[in-house]
């Protein structure tokens, strides 16, 4: 059983390995050239972006989570789930929409601070979701204890609630930062030269695969560091839990102006991260954009969704397999397989694309030559530039989602549950079908939805790896928006936003179930 995690581990590691091979196998001057010229700029831009986004994401996410979890104010119940809606908006679509709408008023709208503001609004749900769960689970007795000992409500927040939530905040902030570092569409549109765009430029404009690979490796290193921070923070968060459950949900009532201020603050991410862009896009579609909806649009959308569905099933299958096999197998290799999947999630799309192209091409060459030797026919490209290659990339990138989901679900099937089934006479297969499968069904469905939507939204890897004349909704939007044809792009963009609501529903159901 240890064979399966090992195989999967290898599959996940192939892109990383290929980056090393591409980067260092052949001598290349491009990288030195980059180092002397633009690399510093790339790094500086990326860092400035992160430096601006972090406080925004932390303040928006944690304060709204604190308000929603522990207080009562107008529209709190609706805002509680609506604050997840920015998850539905890919940042690049927001970039297109806002630029189009406001560049008349703010001609310099395409700038780093605006990009940072966009990221902060769109990525705040990462911090919000984790912080809200922490604040809800945190024993309200701790805050009560602080107040009885002399802290005002505000002081209790800073001295007790916030420090206890810090690990969750760090985890959420790390995930948000990973997204910022990995982003391609938004920064490219805003003409900000980050590491991510640098990889593409080096690949295409400079034509240097090796240089691009080395850049990608640097980017990958950053992502891995962030992943390490996130995992460490999550482990620490478990320390601070295990308090006794809140007896009654004792909420502080905010009345009058205080209440409405709270509502306004919580509404900020919802409005700017989802409501306003959707409204603007809908307006576009309703006035002119609907003309772009024709048969080819339908075909493209269908193709997009089928690809996402296939990728989702493959991911879930791989994730389930890995979760199942590593559950029983102990030891280093089993855990390594699991960790490798998580690392795949941290890989920026650009890095993944660069890492995947090389082995796919090599595999093609190998198989093609062998085939030709046997049959005398040149089969052409089998993997690279096909949907298969794309699905492989998606599996590496998003495999961690179903993996974690299945691990959590299987974790709920305790050894005693399994043992009971076996003692009652069920074979391992029967146990799987009658015990494990029903209990993990909900997690499987949730994971499928999450992967599906993530694939629909994915841009950088898809751009590089997609088959010829195969546009997904995201790529289609990107091309049209780059040509300043937002009206033509609006139906596709709106469709992506609408599809993006699905994971919000899933997330809300999941967090409700946990409560």
């Amino acid at each position: 059983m240890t064979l399966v995690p090992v195989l999967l581990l290898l599959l996940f590691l192939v892109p990383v390995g290929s980056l090393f091979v591409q980067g260092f196998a052949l001598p290349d001057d491009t990288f030195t050239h980059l180092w002397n010229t633009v690399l510093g700029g790339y790094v500086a831009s990326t860092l400035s972006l992160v430096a601006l986004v972090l406080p925004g994401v932390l303040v928006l996410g944690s304060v709204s989570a604190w308000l929603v979890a522990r207080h009562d104010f107008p529209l709190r119940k609706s805002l509680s789930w609506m604050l997840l809606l920015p998850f539905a908006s890919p940042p690049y679509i927001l970039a297109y929409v806002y630029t189009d709408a406001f560049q008349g008023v703010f001609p310099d709208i395409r700038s780093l601070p605006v990009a940072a503001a966009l990221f902060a609004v769109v990525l705040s749900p990462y911090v919000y979701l984790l912080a809200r769960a922490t604040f809800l689970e945190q024993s309200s007795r701790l805050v009560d204890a602080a107040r009885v000992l002399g802290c005002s409500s505000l002081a209790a927040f800073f001295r007790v609630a916030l420090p206890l939530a810090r690990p969750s905040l760090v985890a959420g902030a790390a995930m948000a930062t990973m997204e910022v570092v990995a982003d391609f569409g938004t920064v490219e549109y805003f003409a900000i030269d980050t590491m991510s765009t640098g990889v593409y430029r080096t690949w295409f404009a400079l034509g240097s695969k090796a240089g691009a690979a080395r850049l990608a490796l640097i980017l990958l290193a950053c992502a891995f560091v962030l992943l390490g921070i996130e995992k460490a923070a999550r482990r620490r968060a478990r320390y601070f839990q295990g308090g006794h459950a809140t007896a009654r949900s004792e909420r502080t009532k905010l009345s009058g102006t205080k209440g409405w201020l709270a509502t306004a603050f919580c509404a900020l991410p919802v409005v700017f991260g989802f409501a306003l862009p959707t409204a603007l896009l809908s307006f576009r579609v309703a006035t002119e954009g609907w003309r772009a909806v024709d048969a080819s649009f339908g075909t493209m959308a269908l193709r997009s969704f089928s690809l996402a569905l296939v990728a989702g099933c493959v991911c879930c299958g791989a994730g389930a397999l890995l979760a199942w096999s590593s559950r029983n197998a102990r030891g280093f290799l089993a855990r390594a397989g699991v960790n490798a999947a998580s690392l795949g999630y941290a890989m920026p799309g650009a890095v993944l694309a660069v890492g995947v192209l090389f082995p796919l091409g090599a595999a093609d060459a190998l198989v093609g030559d062998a085939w030709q030797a046997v049959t005398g026919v040149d089969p052409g490209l089998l993997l690279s530039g096909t949907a298969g290659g794309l699905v492989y990339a998606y599996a590496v990138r998003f495999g961690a989602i179903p993996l974690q989901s299945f691990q959590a679900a299987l974790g709920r099937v305790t050894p005693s549950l399994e043992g009971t089934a076996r003692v009652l006479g069920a074979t391992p297969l029967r146990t799987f079908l009658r015990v494990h499968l029903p209990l993990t069904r909900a997690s499987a469905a949730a994971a499928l939805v999450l992967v599906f939507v993530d694939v629909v939204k994915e841009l950088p890897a898809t751009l590089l790896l997609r088959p010829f004349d195969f546009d997904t909704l995201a790529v289609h939007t990107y091309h049209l928006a780059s040509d300043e044809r937002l009206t033509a792009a609006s139906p596709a963009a709106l469709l992506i936003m609408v599809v993006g609501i699905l994971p919000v529903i899933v997330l809300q159901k999941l967090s409700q179930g946990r409560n």
Partner: protein
Amino acid sequence: MTQSLPSLHAHSPGAPGRLPLNVSGVSHAYGDVRTLSGVSLHVAQGEVVALLGPSGCGKSTLLRLVCGLEPVHEGEIALEGSVVSSRKFTLPPEQRGVGLVFQDFALFPHLSVLENVLFGLETRAHAFRWLGAPVSKSARERAMALLARVGLESRAESPAHALSGGQQQRVALARALAPEPRLLLLDEPFSGLDSALRESVRSETLEVLRESGCAAIIVTHDPEEAMAIADRVVVLNEGKVEHDGTPTSLYFSPRTAFAARFLGALNVFEAHLERSPSAGDDSVRARVGNFSFLLDASRVAESLGAGARLDVIVRPEGVLLEPQPPEGLFSKAPSQGRFLAQARSARWLGHEVLVTLDPLGGLSRPLTARVAGSHWRQLFPKWSEGLQSLPVPVQVRFEPGAVHVFASALAEV
């Protein structure tokens, strides 16, 4: 050991202005569920009051009201004469100077033991409270002294979550006492400890409380605990006060049937009041079936007339067993106040025997008697050798002091 305090009876609270706590007519509800109805009680200087009652009776709610964590719906709460809670106004908890020890201790897991104890001192010490100012030397000394008093000064730097249950309880106590509160509230502070530990932690806690001279309310659902530690016991049930008095008064003259039953009385039955002047003494008797027994006249309300229905509660230790008189001398009718019963089972508890009696004289239910081991062995010398077979007939009478009667409130019993 206990300080000599003026034992304030519920009806004469003395000077309300000087009382650390005075609760008058407080009512509260969570939504539609009434938690407290017209509760009044007080705590005197340096007094330890036990708030006793079953789960859900409102005791923890009352604590939260006194702390200011919940507003009152009706009535008033006053601390040292000044009203802190009323229908129109609730002083925030941080301004009340009341200490609270939670049932689950609620230590701050991200702080060390010493930092936990210092927490209340820091907040008062500095103007910029919300920043958590650096601590003064005197505050530190006081915190360390308190930790030493509870025997934990060696663990001062440990993280709070690393301590055992008993240790956490002691830190929680030290933390609550550090800011010198004018009233200390303890919410079932010993229920989270295993029974072996409970006794010692309880007596230590009481010692620390007495030394500090702080007035305190201890909430508990264990009657034995309440009687062991408190100067006064207030029994609460479904949001109402059932009894308010010394432990002795609760034991010997409980004000309501519930209060009596809550102490663990097990023998409950109905009877009729029968005032029969017999042999000239104005004795008061009750009758059930063909069995009549003597009552303590002082316990029977004057207003009850002959034939009134009564709820009778007899404590197991008041069910007295006597050997059955030899067959011939036993008159057909049971002698005054005595009746025959069959001792069906006897469980040896060490120093006591728990006997179940099937009564033969008019009572429909079996009785439970607690008999001193020595007395039982007197009655049945062959018992310890295992040669005594059951059931065996005995004579039973009730000790008047152990009989509590209440006018029958139909729903109660």
